[in-house]
């Protein structure tokens, strides 16, 4: 393996190359998100030995295994809860959760809002491809209204979650969103999240070309990625059956900051005070 130098990012330095080829479909945006993440890790000089990646179940959940770090692939919806224990037990580790829209917002939704509220120093990267891809293309909490999926044959009639608004309302320290097309911007956003001392929630607009894209005639990967910033993307909550494709500009970048004490730090200070050692710290 090459020696890692701070100036040049070489993604191979951060991948488990013997697992290649990876299992992601052609055109899947998750690979771009992975590159942006590792680029950010590189530029921040994070030591792979102290890097822990926790992921759940689904396409997003399988991304972590390709990273040459301490990787944990846990139960569906629970990576944030697992990561909470890991980070509290090992504050010295850099803990990143890679999750998906179903993993994070549906089966794991409760853990997301409480992770935001708790503000433990974890970066949560939610890869939003609007669908349950691994299981064949069922509707997810972020599927836009009217979209066709294998469980919405007449078009989705449920409004989609705006995950960033949810995270902000629940108190996340840092909230941001970016599309995969803007890879350097995505890298920068992830760097902000990783450097933030508290809970950072980052939504990555990914794309599922093979299943979701085909089902809805959204074109090839390039077209889907371009559409993410176009006027054709429906905005969460504001769509209706009558007016399903209301023009909007997807808001990206850092969307919210809520600076407050980091949970682990507060716990350790309180514990020290209970032990009678905290007089100086206070």
């Amino acid at each position: 393996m090459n020696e890692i130098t701070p100036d040049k990012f070489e993604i191979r330095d951060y991948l488990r190359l013997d697992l290649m080829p990876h299992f992601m479909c052609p055109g899947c945006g998750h690979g771009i998100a992975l590159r942006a993440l590792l680029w950010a890790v590189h530029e921040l000089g994070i030591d792979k030995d102290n890097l822990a990646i926790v992921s759940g179940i689904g396409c997003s959940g399988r991304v972590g295994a390709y990273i040459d770090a301490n990787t944990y692939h846990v139960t569906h919806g629970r990576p944030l809860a697992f990561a909470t224990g890991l980070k509290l037990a090992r504050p010295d580790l850099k803990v990143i959760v890679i999750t998906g829209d179903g993993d994070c917002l549906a089966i794991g939704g409760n853990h997301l809002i409480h992770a935001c509220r708790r503000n433990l120093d974890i970066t949560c990267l939610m890869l939003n491809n609007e669908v349950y891809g691994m299981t064949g293309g069922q509707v997810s909490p972020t599927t836009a209204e009217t979209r066709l999926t294998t469980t919405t044959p007449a078009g989705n009639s449920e409004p989609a979650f705006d995950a960033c608004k949810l995270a902000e309302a629940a108190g996340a320290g840092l909230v941001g969103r970016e599309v995969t097309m803007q890879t350097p911007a995505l890298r920068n956003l992830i760097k902000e999240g990783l450097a933030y001392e508290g809970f950072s929630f980052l939504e990555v607009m990914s794309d599922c070309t093979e299943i979701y894209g085909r089902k809805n005639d959204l074109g090839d990967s390039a077209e889907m990625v371009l559409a993410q910033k176009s006027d054709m993307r429906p905005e969460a909550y504001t769509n209706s059956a009558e007016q399903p494709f209301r023009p909007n500009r997807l808001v990206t970048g850092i969307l919210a900051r809520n600076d407050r004490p980091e949970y682990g730090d507060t716990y350790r200070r309180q514990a020290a005070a209970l032990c009678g050692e905290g007089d100086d710290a206070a």
Partner: protein
Amino acid sequence: MTVILQNLHGNHACAMGAIAAGCRFFAGYPITPSSEIAERMSRELPLVGGTFVQMEDEIASIAAVLGASAGGIKSMTATSGPGFSLKQENIGLAAAAEIPCVIANVMRGGPSTGTPTRPAQGDIMQARWGSHGDRPVIALAPASVKEVYDQTIRAFNLSERYRMPVVLLFDQVISHLLEPIELADMASLELVDRPWATGDSAGFEPYASTETGVPPMPRPGDGYRTHTTGLTHGEDGFPTQDPEVVTRATQRLLDKVENHRADIESYECHDTEDAEVLIVAYGISARAARAAVRRARGQGIAAGLFRPITIWPFPEEALKAAASKAKAILVPEMNAGQLVLEIERIVGHDLPVAGLNRIDGQAINPDEILQRIKELAAK
């Protein structure tokens, strides 16, 4: 050895046993009748450099425990029936990924919300089969406050030694029972740490078998950078569906318990040498059985008590030995008949096995058992 006398109730004994065993992380969710374990841990852990966190739900609690243990810290959670049900999937993950942890389940009446403040022993089979798939299981059933303390320590030791979840099963009576107990001083306790990976990280295989069948665990930060997954994985830790590797991996998990039964099994025999009526009872029911056996002996009836402390794996050979003179076996349980099925399986059809069951949220009392002993002895 200095001995410290303390008055503790069962839940507090569980917490203090965990602290003595080296537990430094607890994640839990409030549930009757186990909440005092969490409450006590929230007070004790900060004093010993540990961490307590009350999670948002039962599933999050066990998931956080697995995360902390994966980080290298001895960890536990505590719950009761409804929470035990919710934790099952992650107990399976702990078994599959070989992450040590202890789960205390203070049994209350079920099904569903059941009778939250009343004792029961209805989770015996759930402890064995509650999580899907074939997996190794260790479950311990203490019968006194002192034993809750001791078996909690032992639960951690077994969990660490075999890198797997260990379940403590006791009930509302013992959880809220106050008894004076003697705590051994820390220096005399035998504490076990999981085998840690040491040496070269190049080519390290995190799930390669060893002489004991227990692979050494890589500690994050030590440079091994391994993969941990609930997907069935090969020796390298990465998922596979290769039938041979899958068989080998699953069999090794099961063998960790099968090949170490002598170390894992524990039980107590009272007057079993010549017992014609053998009681097999655990937990609070065993306390009633012991009183009943004493009285039966006082009346000249050859009764005896076999008390499994390790419920899973069940101490089969020890039971067969204890039943060698028996003409009948009686299994009193606060359920509709669970462990009795295992007893029937072990002793075969030559020996009549009867249940004595209560599903009304009341503990079985010595009089009921004595009555049945007399009936069985008269046959």
